[in-house]
């Protein structure tokens, strides 16, 4: 799988893992059609941490869903390791998510009937080369809370379990949609620290959606979206540690 596209270098200098070319997404038809994406080109480097900024309705979540194989684009291509996601059927997309993508949601979406460790094991049981659930929990600093049920954990802790669950499969792509959206700033920092650690230790390419522009400082690269298009894009010279972010 050595498509020339995948060999090129990204802005931050790492090897490209994912490339989106001319992505469009239209919901509905005719005059009532909503253009959620209007031609987005994007590359993502291996191990790169990209923050996606933008107001509601700017298309960031739609983009994330398409990159994660949850939705298909109306036009354009998403190529990961030389494979076109648009050509995959439902089973192949499931396989793609299962093997290569980790998701972190705004509202954690833990399975209430499983302990922290078991929530992680849920994924490791079906992954190809996973971390052990305990190691994954240690990365996010939750080793001692492994046997607690979600109802016994704080919001920040729940989100860190969600992160551990997402990275335990050593995903090539970690997609986080407003991971701190439901948290206070103190807890948010802890969660962002966890994401950063994971990005460093597991080496997953990470896309993080947020409303909060301050968070952009922790990224390698920042992409701003507006009206379904990339409005601005820049690379941070230095990455700021989450605890030093000014909320």
């Amino acid at each position, binding site marked *: 799988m050595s498509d020339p596209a995948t060999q090129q270098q990204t802005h931050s200098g790492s090897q490209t893992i994912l490339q989106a070319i001319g992505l469009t997404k239209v919901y509905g038809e005719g005059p009532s059609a909503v253009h959620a994406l209007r031609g987005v080109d994007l590359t993502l480097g291996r191990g790169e941490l990209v923050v996606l900024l933008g107001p509601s309705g700017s298309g960031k*979540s739609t983009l994330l*869903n398409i990159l*994660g194989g*949850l*939705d298909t684009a109306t036009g354009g291509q998403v190529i990961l390791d030389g494979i076109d996601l648009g050509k995959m059927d439902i*089973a192949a997309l*499931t*396989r*793609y*998510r*299962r*093997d290569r*993508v980790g*998701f972190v*949601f*705004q*509202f954690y*979406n833990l*399975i*209430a*009937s*499983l302990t922290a460790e*078991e*929530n992680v*094991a*849920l*994924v490791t*049981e*079906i992954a190809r080369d996973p971390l052990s659930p305990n190691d994954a929990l240690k990365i996010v600093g939750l080793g001692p809370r492994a046997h607690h*049920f*979600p*109802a*016994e954990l704080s919001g920040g802790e729940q989100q860190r379990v969600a992160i551990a*669950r997402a990275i335990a499969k050593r995903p090539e792509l970690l997609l986080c*949609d407003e991971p701190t959206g*439901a948290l206070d700033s103190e807890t948010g920092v802890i969660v962002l620290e966890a994401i950063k650690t994971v990005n460093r230790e597991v080496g997953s390419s990470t896309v993080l959606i947020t409303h909060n522009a301050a968070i952009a400082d922790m990224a390698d690269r920042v992409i701003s979206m507006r009206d379904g298009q990339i409005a601005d894009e820049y690379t941070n010279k230095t990455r700021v540690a989450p605890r030093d972010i000014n909320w």
Partner: protein
Amino acid sequence: MHPLNRKLLRDLLRLRGQVFAVALVVASGVALLVMSLSTLTSLQATTDAYYERYSFAEVFAGVRRAPMRLTDRIARIPGVQTVETRISALTTVEIASMSEPVMAHLLSVPDDREPLLNRFALLTGRSPLADRDDEAVLHAPFAQAHGLVPGDSIRVLLNGTQRKVRVVGIALSPEFVYAIAPGGLMPDDRRYGIVWMGRETLAAAYDMQGAFNDVTLSLLRDVDPKPVITDLDDLLEDHGGSGAIARADQISNWFLMNEFDQLRTMATILPGIFLSVAAFLTNAILARIITVERREIALMKAFGYTDLQVGWHYTMLALAMTAVGVLLGWGAGAALGRYNTEIYTQFFRFPFLFYRPSGTEFALSAIVAFGAGLLGAIGAVRQVLRLVPAQAMRPPAPERFREVALPHAVVEALDSPTRIILRHIIRNPLRAGVTVVGVALSVAVLVMAMQWNDAIYLLVRNHFQQSQHQDMVVGFRGTRADSARHALLSLPGVLAVEPMRLVAADITNGRTRHRGGLTALPEDSRLQLIHDVRGWKVPVPTGGVVLGRLLAEKLDVKPGDTVEVEILERDHRRFELTVAGIHETWIAMPAYVSLAQLNRLLGDPPSFEYASLLVDAADEGPLYDALRALPGLATVTVKHNAIQTMFETIGETILIFSGFFVLFSSALAYGVVYNAARVALSERGRELATLRVLGFTRAEVSYILIGETALLVMIALPLGCLAGYGLVAIIVQAFETELFRLPFVIPPTAFGKAVLVIIIASAVSAAVVRRRLDRLDLISVLKTRE
């Protein structure tokens, strides 16, 4: 329309799958109730009208030969309203289409007037004319079975003399609503019929001029038949009275009343099962809706709706679901009731039939169903009342789970999806319990329905094959000397002959008297056996009597005790017999003695009235011809014909009824499983969508959703078999009668079939819910809080 009512309608439409599932269970219960009760009321109304219009008698007695002058004395018994005497005889008739002799019950009708009691209802033709001795009216089922119409002829054996008789009328009679041959179990219209002929004709043939051998009475209003029977027995004793019986013991009426009892039992037990499950389902659905709509509820309360208004809104939802079921159930119940009533008329013959549901069954079923719906709603609606608006606006606290109460090693060995399944079941044991109980009950109902067929098959097989090894039983008018056996043995094709006697008798212990009979068999009997249904042969006692279990219980005697016997024939001999043994039997309440002993006790030389024959099938034709020529022959019963008829008749009916119950039980299982899976999907849709996002395949996610329900069904299946065992025990007990008991035997196939049907019904409903998994919105999960 009030916005809340509009919401109600939309909710019903939105929840149509679940509404339909609950409605289906309610409808099954209501339909069963309406069907049983409307059949019962219709048959009862029909029976009452029939008995009334055609003056069905209230006391019946047979006598050897009583002079007509006794009639006045009988009429003077206190409480007697009408006395009608007759001549009655069992004989055989020749019908062109039948090679074998056909058994007939001859009854006289007055020559110059209508009978006072037990008038027949002429369907076509007329009564025999006074001056014609060759005219007869035939019982309609018998005539129809042979295609006989007025104008046709049959040959009737009148006390040993063949006479060609012209059919002049076809009729039904309240006395023979259920026309069953002596010793038979089911009507066999081809081989047993009633033939009415003029009194003079029969009197001449049977030497009954100025005499009678059968008397029936009607009584004044509200008169207890018991003292009348005692007085009548006293009057008839010197003339060979064979013991009077009340209408309640008259065989046709007995079967009819027994059927009514069974319908009543059905109307009590089964709808109860369905409607209580419906109540639990309603509760589960409503509880879930209320959890999902807690914000709406808070909003309504915040707007100023009272608790009562909001509570009523949800109660209405429950009642509306029930109402759909009630309406469906009424329709199905009325249709099934009519159908059922018509099926009954194949066995119970009426000249007219009122399918007239009184309306009470509809009202009653609605009251019971809505009662169950309300009961189901109350628990759930209490949640609504407890919700404080401000608190309800916040999302519900996360569900609390505990470690599965299983050994740690077992939990470790399980994969996560299985752990999810187990923890959900343990977290909500009540709801899991309802699913298990609901499915188990549907299995139980089905086991019961499936068991009928096998039970009756077993009963017939036992009666005809285990205890009766003869091919044919012939009966004579009066006793035959022992030497007559040789005459029988010399008939073509007869391989073995075994004599037998059946005498009417009262068997008494203390104050308990049983009016029945003694069956006398040779001590080395091989063709007719005393067979214990538990699988062994009981030897014919050389002295004493072997009783059927039910008779022993009725008389409260055990082996070694003594019973008093009064023979209801000739000089009414009385003697005591020691109970030599007790055996289990499903049919009648037999009392067996040895033939030699009975002859001795009656002061008779070795003699018999019946004979079992073992016959070479190849010679059946010539044998029938020879039997026709045999003097004094009254009855011929061919065993394989009797079995075949029983299986045909029973098979068809049972198939129809099993069909009903397969439908009803499947509806129950479908409703329970659908709702369990649907509620689980509603509760866990978000988790399942999350798992899909995480890369779980549809099959894996289905496993979690359906696995829980499947596990509950798995638990329910053996429990259902157990419950089925219990239900059969209850039904067997409820249907235990002096004439027959359903064997309490459930063959493995009954369990197998029931389990299979319920697995299919459960799988179908799970598949319907499973389809919804494909429509899970994976994207919304990422964004929304529950």
